[in-house]
């Protein structure tokens, strides 16, 4: 695992609660808002299960800590998206809170329903980008959530030991976190 320069992290008072909201103007229309919210709720939960940070959806986009939107091309943050495939998404380091997904992708919440061969799993990308929002940079571990690449029609949503160790070094461990919840094979790989 790795961090951004200066190792930035959110500094809200403990117990830390971060709010997140979806852009009222920049969303996609072929996946329902309820499904998108469910995807992000699960993605945030994965991180909150391992660190003492809670996430709550807020209605006010402008004042939320984490602001999520689907954007295309040059969308004003100096990091233009490039159309289908290529760059899928990006997010900013703490405590900026911007999380942007490329609206040109064919986002999927269910590969059985979305048959495109270039479909990208929204939950996998959301989980990765939340890692950036929290302060993790890219990892060299190919199985880790924070590895920078994701193939079309592939799904990677479970935190691995590398992700957990990295984020817990920033925020500490959730007292309810149980290492047994990580994949057995992953723990064996880490131990070796």
């Amino acid at each position, binding site marked *: *695992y*790795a*961090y*951004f*320069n200066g190792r930035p992290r959110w500094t809200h008072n403990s117990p830390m609660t971060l709010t997140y909201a979806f852009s009222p103007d920049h969303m996609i229309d072929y996946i329902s808002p309820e499904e998108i919210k469910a995807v992000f709720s699960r993605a945030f939960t994965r991180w909150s299960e391992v660190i003492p940070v809670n996430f709550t959806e807020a209605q006010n986009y402008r004042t939320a800590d984490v602001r999520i939107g689907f954007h295309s091309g040059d969308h004003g943050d100096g*990091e233009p*998206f*490039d*159309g*289908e*495939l*290529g*760059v*899928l*998404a*990006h*997010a900013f380091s703490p405590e900026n809170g911007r999380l942007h997904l490329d609206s040109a*992708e*064919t986002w999927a919440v269910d*590969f059985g329903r979305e*048959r*495109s*061969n*270039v479909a*990208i799993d929204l939950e996998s*990308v959301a989980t*990765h*980008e939340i890692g*950036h929002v929290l302060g993790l*940079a*890219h*990892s*060299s*571990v*190919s199985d880790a959530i924070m*590895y*920078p*690449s*994701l*193939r*079309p*029609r*592939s*799904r990677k949503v479970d935190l691995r030991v590398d992700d957990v*160790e990295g984020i817990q*070094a920033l925020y500490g461990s959730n007292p309810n976190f149980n290492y047994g919840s990580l994949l057995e094979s992953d723990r064996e790989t880490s131990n070796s």
Partner: protein
Amino acid sequence: RTFPQPSILNFNDTTTSSVVAAAFNSSSTPWGNFAKFANLEKGSHVTGICDLKTYLNRFGYLPAPAPGNFSDDFDSDLESAILTYQKNLGLPPTGKLDTETIDLIMAPRCGLGDSHLRHNTTTITHLHETRR
């Protein structure tokens, strides 16, 4: 939006390389035409390899050219950048554009760069050792 004929692809397999290849070989995708650089090595001169240098520059592996644009030469700087890319992302470090490397370069990815991996290698190692 149109896509290739579904009949040639196995949509039920989420990892089949043929699916990946079918998707990435399209020149309509940002890095789809990088496939033609497969198996090149230092000393080659191929039109368009400047785009690959731009890619490596964008993600933190190659310094910006000064002055002007990147050349189409497979030079020492490009070889070094590819070597670092391979080491950072868990590929066999050959410094060549082998198939595995090109395949990963063409894969969709996060827009953030990887430069911290190279710069913070010592720190990363130290943190792991401390925790163990």
